[in-house]
Structures are given as structure tokens and as C-alpha cells.
């Protein structure tokens, strides 16, 4: 019974995460300039990967694997905006010059 609930919750989270990834991809294609494109990809990726990883954590339960997934999530959440800053800053400087 527990595993069924686990699987339903995990499946829902993973599908939702994939939806946000899809939105990020669509935004990347539809947005008019570099900055607006960064908007969609950073946010979509962050929540998308967050939901997928939380879904996987639900699936694996209280194990060392879950802890590992959590560490992955934290690292991704720190690095995604940092990478976005770098892209935005270089584009901004290219624009100004």
C-alpha cells in the first residue's frame, strides 16, 4: 500500500517536473532576446529538476540515496543562477560595447 502511494506521488512529481522542463524549452525557443531566454531556462530548470529529484527521493524513501539526491539538488540550485549571471553579464557587456 505504501509503495503504491509512493509511486503515485513520485510519478506525479516527476511528470510535473518534466512539464516545467518542457515550458523552459518552449520559452527558450519563443522568447525574443537573450535575457528573456535566460528567464525561462533558469526558472524552469530549477523547479523542474527540483520536482524530479523530490519525486525520486519519495521513490527511494529514507536511504543514503535520498541524501545524495538532496545534495545534488542543493548544488544545482546554487549553480543554476550563478551560470545565469555569467551568461547575462557577458551579454550585457557585449551589448554595452
Amino acid at each position, binding site marked *: 500500500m505504501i509503495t503504491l502511494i509512493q509511486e503515485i506521488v513520485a510519478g506525479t512529481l516527476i511528470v510535473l517536473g518534466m512539464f*516545467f522542463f518542457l*515550458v523552459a524549452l*518552449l*520559452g527558450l525557443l*519563443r*522568447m*525574443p*532576446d537573450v*535575457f*528573456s531566454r*535566460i*528567464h*525561462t531556462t*533558469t*526558472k*524552469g530548470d*530549477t*523547479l523542474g529538476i*527540483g520536482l524530479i529529484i523530490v519525486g525520486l527521493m519519495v521513490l527511494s524513501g529514507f536511504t*543514503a*540515496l535520498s*541524501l*545524495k539526491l538532496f*545534495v545534488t539538488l542543493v548544488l544545482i*540550485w*546554487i549553480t*543554476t*543562477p*550563478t551560470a*545565469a*549571471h555569467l551568461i*547575462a*553579464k557577458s551579454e*550585457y*557587456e557585449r551589448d554595452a560595447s
Partner: protein
Amino acid sequence: MRGKWVVWLSYFAVLFGLWLILAEFSPLSEWIIGALASALVLVWLRRSLLLPRDIRPITPRGLLAFFPFLMHWLKDLLIANVEVARIVLSKNMDIKPDFYTFDQPLKSDVAQATLANAITLTPGTLTVDYDNQTLIIHSLRPHHYDDLKSATFLAYLKAMEAPDA
């Protein structure tokens, strides 16, 4: 020089802890390799890591302010995603991208970096550049910038940084 050793030891503890989590706490040989690897990374990065003089001590109140900050930030992250998803999926994307400046009140490097990252992950705003106390922000719609000025997580960041204020 006692403070210096505490800082290096805590860096080591963080790296070693990460290693242990990734190695799933077994077997013992992994622990030794992990300790060596953490020490090597510290030696390698000894010039670029934050030194004791740049770090303000974390106070209990600062630590307490971190959790409401995290909660508000997570809420903003969710709203940001739904809003950006609605913009992307709408038929004629009604956006008016523009640059704004934002005078931020924080002083320490760590708090400023946290703020810049938090801004990037909240509705319709993106940190582009940084100049003294001013952040240059790109906003999808003008009201996103107005929302930012009244964002709740800023107050928590201030509390984390200046516990005596």
C-alpha cells in the same frame, strides 16, 4: 590565529561530509580517500576561498532567520515558475523586458551573493550585473520589479546579516 583554523576545519568538514554522503558512508577505505581528497582540494583552493577576515560569525538569530527566508524563497520560486509558464504558453507573449537598478542594503559578500541568486530565481527578475551597492536587474514586466522591492525575503536576509540591528 585560532579563528583561521576553525574556518579551515569547517571547510574540511563540509567537503568531507559531502564526500561521505556521496560515498554512502562505506567502506573505510573510502573515508581515507575522502579525507585526502578534501585536504587536496583545500590546498588547491587556498587562495580563492573566503578567508577569516571576510567571514562574519553566524549568530543563532541569523541561523533562525534562514529558515523563514528559505520558505518565502521557495514560495516565490513556485510563483515565478507558474507565472513564467503562463507567459511562455500564452498566445501572444505580453512582455516588456527592460533593465532596472536596485539599491541593495546588504553589506557582506555572502549575503549579497545570496540576494543576487534569490533575485534570479524569483518572478520575472534576473540579476545581470553588480556595481558597488547597486544591482542591475532585467525584468520581464515592469510590475515584477515593483514586486521585488517589497519582497519579503529581503527582510529576512537583512536579519541574517545584521543580528544586532
